[in-house]
């Protein structure tokens, strides 16, 4: 796959898969305000997906649309990081995943605002406004629940322990990322790490949680080589309508 297409799928598949996961909460959140917040976050992420995958389809030049890429690819074609495809589990787990992703996402988009590719810089500038809101809310919630009751604290600590090994993948550039960085299209992923660690350390401390020292990292989502078994199940649900009624319009 050409680099730019591959890289745009990484951005668009992250927002698509997380957007779908978060949308699974619609009508199920613990309180009305949180239900609305989750639905709005999902909506923003799906909106961003339309821009990333829309541009991916354009640069691919095979007459496909963002919808074609979202609904007519299989798990092995997806380029999202493993973190976003993990199941929601409980509310605290969902918000911890959101906080970890938002914190990376905000730094990444900030870097992309300086992209040499004007189309990418435009999408990043538009998305960054929304993602700043997401990050503010998810950080507040992680603090509220971490420094909350004994029950909520334990659940947040368990979520952090479970999810932390999935963060490393987002900071390990491969050959595609390296070429994007050399062309001035995208920031160096490894260079985002120190800013990320600082944000995480502050919030986690305020949430009275403990971060493990381990840097062990699960990987294989961003190049599609080793997605978890969860992605296929999620796609089966997400894609069933357009796959059952191809080219249906409404």
């Amino acid at each position, binding site marked *: 796959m050409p680099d730019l297409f591959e890289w745009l799928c990484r951005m668009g598949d992250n927002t698509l898969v997380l957007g779908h996961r978060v949308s699974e909460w619609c009508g199920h959140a613990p309180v009305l305000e949180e239900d609305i917040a989750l639905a709005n976050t999902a909506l923003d992420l799906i909106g961003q997906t339309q821009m990333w995958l829309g541009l991916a389809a354009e640069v691919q030049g095979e007459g496909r649309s963002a919808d074609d890429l979202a609904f007519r690819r299989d798990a092995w074609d997806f380029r999202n990081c493993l973190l976003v495809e993990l199941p929601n589990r409980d509310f605290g787990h969902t918000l911890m995943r959101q906080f970890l992703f938002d914190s990376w996402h905000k730094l990444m988009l900030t870097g992309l605002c300086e992209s040499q590719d004007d189309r990418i810089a435009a999408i990043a500038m538009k998305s960054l*406004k*929304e993602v700043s*809101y997401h990050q503010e809310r998810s950080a507040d919630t992680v603090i509220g629940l971490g420094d909350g009751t004994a029950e909520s604290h334990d659940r947040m600590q368990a979520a952090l322990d479970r999810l932390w090994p999935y963060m490393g993948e987002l900071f390990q550039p491969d050959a595609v990322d390296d070429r994007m960085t050399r062309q001035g299209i995208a920031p160096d992923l490894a260079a985002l790490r120190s800013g990320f660690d600082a944000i995480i350390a502050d919030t986690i401390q305020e949430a009275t949680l403990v971060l493990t020292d381990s840097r062990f990292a699960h990987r294989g989502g961003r190049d599609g080589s080793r997605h978890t078994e969860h992605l296929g199940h999620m796609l089966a649900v997400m894609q069933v309508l357009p796959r059952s009624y191809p080219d249906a319009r409404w």
Partner: protein
Amino acid sequence: MTATIQQMWEWLGQVPDPEIPVISLVDLGVIRSVDQVGGEWVVTISPTYTGCPATRVIEMDIQTALSARGVAVKIRRQIAPPWTTDWMTDSGKAKLEAYGIAPPQPSGGPQRCPHCASTDVEKISQFGSTPCKAQWRCRDCLEPFDYFKCI
């Protein structure tokens, strides 16, 4: 009969926002430009939030309103520079407040309760009934209200 640019803006100023119908699309600041390109009218709009379902309705409402005036238009979406609440008109902000929605403030929170004008207000949630709004509450009159987020 051919329309003038001035007429086009006037007509667009009469198209209500689909979600907050007390303000027009011009008040909302989503109409970037109106141009005549090779005999064809082009209206350029800036979407508010990327996933906002109202964007498509806004496009349809523009087409419908102008075709009722006998004008066919092409709509172009422009995302850069990104839409900001700074582009909302002052009259639009006043109409929002009269309607019960606190208008956006650079400080990031409402200046006062749109019902009783008290400044003793608190945030309930950063997210509200539409992507552009947050939920706040007045500690004096105890009423909840929408705040139009400043972005």
